[in-house]
């Protein structure tokens, strides 16, 4: 039965192939444009660490200028000062915590044929790796003892290990970085959370760093820092003065699985600030905040305004395409009023006709969906061409998106087909037959 209806629909689609093509194109374009934009938004807004995102908290404390908020309306600064980050590390009030910051190292190698190169580095504490579920290929992260001893240890990314050691297990080997000797303790496997949630201050969709070293070495070896530094108050000359200044440059994460721990941590932060107020720091009103991963991504507007504007445009675009399809289907079905009248007179029930025309709409929807998927793929490649590396992490189609594109297309065309079909089924047979 269904097969028979499908065959009738196919004949009908072919009999007016130009109109059918127009409809498929309209649905396909609508779906294509919409899904291209939705895909980018979906990846931008996706949860980078789904099984732990509600347990990891970004810590903010308002150490900013008493006269001006860091960002209106009264937002606390997006990073911490060295003084505060170290106080939180020493207190160790969370089950796991890490201060973290970006740096760069010049890697020199024993092999004469390999030229020295600059590697981007992430600094952190021992907890960084278990906190963020970093997968290891060889070895592991460093220990708390190595943090305290300021050991010169290094963890390499998979690519960096390929580049330097040809991909073999390099744990225990040494390399020279910015004039110091480091021992490799681990090599991580492919790891690239999107967004790069643990540090979005230099862009939320950057690549993960080439190497990882203990945070304390920034101080110990005066490594060259990268990333953003913001100061509201001038600091005195020299590195020690910088460390003791009100400049913010450190991200701080705490793992707080239960509500009780979160509450306790916030009151600890308040106590820390109250104590610092007595020393003349923190002259703004108490304004501490902990945000879980997704709240932090939202606060920092990781899904950019441009992407949201494009989403609005894309949805309206799909809507226009649907209106178009409704109009074209209406023309098509009502153009067959006489045939419908005749069939009704010969005994076809309204339900039968309804089913037949809805199947025809659905078939156009499937065709439109397939075309839409192709156009989505073309659109994403086009975005890649326009934006290059900038967006490379954002333009991949996964099965969820492919399935939603097809479902959206069929749903859209059924919706579009509903009114024309209903109109067509309500053609009065007598009025059509009279003229014959």
């Amino acid at each position, binding site marked *: 039965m269904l097969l028979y209806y499908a065959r009738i629909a196919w004949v009908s689609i072919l009999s007016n192939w130009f*109109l059918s093509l*127009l409809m498929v194109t*309209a649905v396909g*374009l609508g779906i294509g*444009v919409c899904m291209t934009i939705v895909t980018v938004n979906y990846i931008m807004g996706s949860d980078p660490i789904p099984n732990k995102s509600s347990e990891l908290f970004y810590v903010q404390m308002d150490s900013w*200028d008493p*006269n001006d908020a860091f960002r209106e309306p009264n937002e606390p600064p997006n990073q911490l000062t060295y003084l505060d980050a170290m106080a939180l590390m020493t207190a160790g009030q969370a089950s796991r915590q890490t201060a973290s910051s970006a740096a760069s190292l*010049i890697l*020199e190698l024993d092999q004469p044929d390999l*030229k*020295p*190169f*600059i590697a981007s580095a992430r600094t952190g504490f021992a907890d960084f790796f278990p906190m963020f579920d970093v997968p290891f290929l060889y070895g592991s992260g460093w220990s708390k003892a190595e943090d305290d001893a300021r050991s010169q240890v290094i963890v390499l990314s998979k690519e960096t290990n390929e580049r330097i050691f040809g991909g073999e297990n390099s744990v225990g080997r040494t390399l020279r970085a*910015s*004039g110091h000797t480091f021992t490799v303790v681990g090599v991580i496997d492919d790891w690239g959370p999107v967004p790069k949630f643990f540090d979005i201050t230099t862009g939320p969709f950057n690549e993960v760093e080439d190497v990882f070293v203990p945070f304390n070495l920034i101080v110990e070896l005066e490594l*060259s820092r990268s990333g953003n530094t913001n100061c509201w*108050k*001038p*600091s*005195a*000359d*020299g*590195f020690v*003065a*910088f460390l003791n200044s009100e400049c913010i440059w450190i991200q701080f994460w705490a793992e707080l699985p239960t509500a009780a721990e979160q509450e306790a941590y916030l009151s600890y932060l308040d106590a820390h600030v109250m104590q610092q107020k007595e020393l003349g720091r923190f002259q703004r009103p108490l304004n501490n905040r902990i945000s879980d991963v997704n709240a932090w991504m939202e606060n920092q507007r990781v899904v950019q*305004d*441009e992407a*949201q*504007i*494009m989403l*609005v*445009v*894309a949805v*309206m*675009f799909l*809507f*226009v*395409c649907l*209106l*178009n399809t*409704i*109009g*074209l289907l*209406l*023309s098509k079905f*009502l*153009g067959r009023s006489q045939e419908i009248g005749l069939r009704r007179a010969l005994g076809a029930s309204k339900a039968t006709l309804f089913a037949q025309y809805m199947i025809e709409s659905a078939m156009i929807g499937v065709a439109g969906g397939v075309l839409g998927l192709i156009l989505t793929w073309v659109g994403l490649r086009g*975005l890649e061409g*326009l*934006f*290059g590396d*900038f967006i490379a992490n954002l333009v991949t189609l996964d099965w969820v998106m492919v399935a939603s594109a097809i479902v959206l297309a069929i749903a859209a065309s059924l919706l579009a087909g509903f*009114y024309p079909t209903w*109109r067509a089924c309500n053609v009065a047979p007598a009025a059509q037959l009279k*003229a*014959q």
Partner: protein
Amino acid sequence: METGPILRALSRNKTGALLIALQIAFTMTVVVNAWYMVGERLGNIDRPSGLLEEDIFYVSSTGFAEDFNIKVTIEEDLLALRQLPGVVDAVTINAVPLSGGGWSMGLRIDPGDDTQSWPVAVYMVDQHGVNTLGLNLVAGDDFDVADVEWREPGQTSWPDKVVISQAMATAMFPDMDLNNIVGKTVYISNDEPVMISGIVEKLQAPWSGWNSIEQSMLVPQKTAFSSVRYMVRTEPGRLDEVIPRVETTLLNLNDGRLVRNTMTMTETRERGYLLDQGLATILTVVMAVLLLITAVGVLGLASFSVRRRTRQIGVRRALGATQQDILRYFLVENACIALIGVFAGALMTVGLNAWLVGAMSFPKIQWGAIPIGMILLVLVAQLSVIGPARRACGVSPAVATRTV
């Protein structure tokens, strides 16, 4: 005019007309807002940076050898670079306009931490800065050799003189003649005095999306950092030939360093406005496709309505209506629908814009854009109906005598 009968006929077949009017309204909403955004972004891209961009490139030098002497190397490098054939001038500079990375400070007219402060981008250069960047000095003087000092890592003090951009000068001293602004003392880092010794016509900050993009200053300092950036201005048209020469010269002078990240100002501009340019391209494509779809929709529904009214047209022709009358009927009918559409579209355009302005960083559209959008959509609708309407003119009066 037969608007009366046309409207009455329309009211008997509301659905088709409504579909077209809605399409026109939505299309207009998207097109006017998107057009405005494209205009704004492209306008940003067209702003000059103040530099002679086509003749300028820059390259980073990062020392890593243990015996790497920063200051000696920089002096040697600059001396050698400035003598290279094809090079007009060269400087060390801490940041590059449009590159997205740099330093900013605040300047104050009155010292203190609660007086008004004007944000300003900082470029550290020596006495060759104005010449290398190709800036136009409109008041005061360029730096002198004696003004230039080293800036050590971690140093926070500033030199005595600065050269600021004209936009910075007029922001701080709105009604003052430029020549009188020269010589004024302003305050950096809350209370450290610096004197404005010169004003350049234009010099943009490194951040293309910054609100204060035109506010910048040059300070006479050479950065004694292990990683420095040389900016080089070549003679017109000799950029491509000079770049490799500069790279080899630097490596020959001292190989205890990495020479990397060579980039021309032209590339920097493209990267700096990548998002804006890309967005403008996408929106333009979307607008064009959307207008096309609407045109096809109007065409489809108009053909349908012509086909359905073949008999009626024949009867009118038989009763004496000319071909022009029939043509006019369809054009006027279409115009009526389009007008309903564009008036609804005008309301929706304003509504969407108000929402976008409130929720995101979106430009507020000017009123003039709305009538232009309305005219555009009515024109598109009229053009798409011409085909079917001409077919309607061709209907023979004899049709009236046939029973379908």
